[in-house]
């Protein structure tokens, strides 16, 4: 279900954990965890990015801008740096 834009050619042991940032536009993946316990991580959790929820990456802004996500029946935009905190189930 998870399709990757990068890292696919790396051997499994060297492959870092898959984050929401690596999920290709158009595909859906399930959240495994949100790392960190600071304000940003708390906000991501509060917005519904909790472990077990399915997230579809709907789009991405140009020049490495934010991602557009669909989860819990609504659309959410987060920066790529923030998406990197969300690890996805493999």
């Amino acid at each position: 279900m998870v399709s990757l834009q990068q890292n696919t050619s790396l051997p499994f042991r060297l492959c870092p954990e898959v984050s929401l940032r690596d999920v290709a536009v158009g595909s859906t993946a399930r959240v495994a965890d949100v790392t960190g316990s600071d304000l940003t991580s708390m906000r991501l959790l509060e917005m519904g990015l909790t472990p077990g929820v399915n997230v579809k990456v709907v789009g991405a802004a140009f020049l490495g801008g934010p991602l557009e996500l669909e989860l819990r029946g609504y659309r959410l935009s987060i920066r790529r740096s923030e998406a990197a905190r969300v690890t996805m189930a493999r």
Partner: protein
Amino acid sequence: MSYAAGIPVAERAITVVLLGNPNTGKSTLFSAMAGIPTRVGNYPGVTVEEKLGRMAYRGHSIQLIDLPGTYSLAPKSPDEQVAVNVLRGQMPGVPAPQCVVVVADATNLERNLYLTSQTLELGIPTVIALTLCDVADEKGTAIDIQKLSERLGCAVVRVVASRREGIDLLCDEILAATGVPQPRPVGLDASLTAATATHSPAASEAIARYQWIENVLEGIVQRNPPAIRSLNDSIDAVVTHRVWGTLLFAATMLAMFSSIFWLATPLMDIISRGIDALAAGAEGLLPPGAIRSLVVNGVIAGVGGVVVFVPQIAMLFFFIAVLEGCGYLSRAAFLMDRLLVGVGLSGKSFIPLLSSFACAIPGIMAARTIENPRDRLLTILVAPLMSCSARLPVYLLLCGAFVPNVPVGTPWLRLPAVVLACMYAVGVVVAAAVAFVLKSTFFRGPPEPFVMELPGWRWPRWRVVLQRVRESVWSFLQNAGTLIVAVSIVVWALASYPHNAEVIHAEVQAQRQSLTDQLASLDSTPADAMPAERRELAADITEQLAFLDTEVGLAAAHRGAAQRQSFLGQGGRFIEPLVKPLGWDWRIGCAALASFPAREVVLGTLGVIYNLGEIDPGEAEDASALVRRLRSATWDGTTRKVFTLPVALSLMVFFALCAQCASTLVVIGKETHSWVWPVVAFAYMTVLAWLGACATYQLGTWILS
């Protein structure tokens, strides 16, 4: 209810708090219930806005408190801290609420119930106002309100605030709920215990609440049919597409910006003409003297200076309300975030900054769409650096008159056009630098997450759009307008007094004498031996003397002398040492001082100071007369020209960066509810303008010599 001590029982108001996520139609609901707020200010010590309103319902008086839009009650930002303090009754000066209305978006119930679950735990009587139900209907989302109410343990009311539907029912439920203790949400504690056992403490609360929400919503929400969903998806696919989305965005912004810039101009002209007619009428009615001058140049000019902004404000807020109403505003922020994050701002600053190129006043007001108080303040502080339309005539006149019209590289590109573009670039670059520096010094703090909801596509609600336009225009006229008029009157007084007719007369005589003497000394040399430059000077002096002999010329000379005698003129002389490093003489310094009410008056002021009388720089004839007079202006007592290329450039750079716009400063004060920020904006911009102008002049002189 200790707060009510001393207030007669009959007048005791029920305090009701409106709480909700951003973009849930909370403000629309507030307006539908209480109309225009009775008080808008800041909570003590923070820049979080406090909005109060009052309404009467069935013999009860209800005091409404509109809290800032929040996603959560776990205090992380100043907004959330304020919300928590108000709800707990710990905010000084704010009575403890007797009822909380949680405004929940019916199209996005799952996420909206997160805040609801936190509110229900507080034990304050709670009523849920389910907003945007009309949009949910269109999307085909059906919600079993009866069942939802049972499971949450509080009343749930369907509301369409834009059509005032359900408002009475909501008020009935508020009255019914008040005084009845709120039971703890059923099953939430169990979820919290279960989640704490399996997850980290940071994640467990969110996991537990969403688990509880999923249980509550089980079988309550019938999701929309796929046909409508896919339409929403295909719109989004185009609008947020890397190529098409960006092109569409550029086109939308261009259309919006050019409308503010060009469509508002005819309306502003009509207003200006109306004000001129009013001034002419008052001039005819009143006898000449101080009263007439006060009415015409102080009051009418001041009111005109306020009303003239209305078309731009109305137009910008119309566009913002339409874009917000259809869901594009947050997409614009989404697309632009990458460009602005580098300088410490976010995508939400884009529209306020873009509109500031037309005029900083609507731009600063548009910063209301930025929820984060720190980003909003930063945007407000740098917005006046964008070159607004009031600077354009200054640039155009000076570029046309003093920048040599030579091609740069290609024959199509001429130097004045390049200089003009540079003036716009100076503002943008300096704004970026200022934002970056402020963000890494005084506005430092943990990075604010850019976690933003992208609402579904829908048709804008025209009532809401019109209400938004009306509110913005009204708040500008009522809050800022009165103060701008007052400032205009003060500046008028400074430019008109002291007024000593004898001294003015003597100065005009002395001027005439000095011109005659100069001409005589030139004439004493044989005409054919005169070099071209001296002949030109002689012709120029002859022209000035001839102008002095006409009635208009004499009046203009008196007007100029009066201005130079005034406090403002004295101020100009006083600051001469300060403006000398910029290459300016005291007259330019005086004009810069006098342009404090608005930058565009600097050309008119220069006209008055250089004895041309009241000129309209928009008229080609007046502008060319001003250019001729500026070109021939010399330093007092010498034949050295004042206006050279470096001086013109330094003047332009100064106006690109300075805060010579009283209206902008007043609006900054009103929008931030503080007098600190306009002072900060004025101080930093004036310092930067001086440094920039000084560097330009010194560098320009060094290069050209």
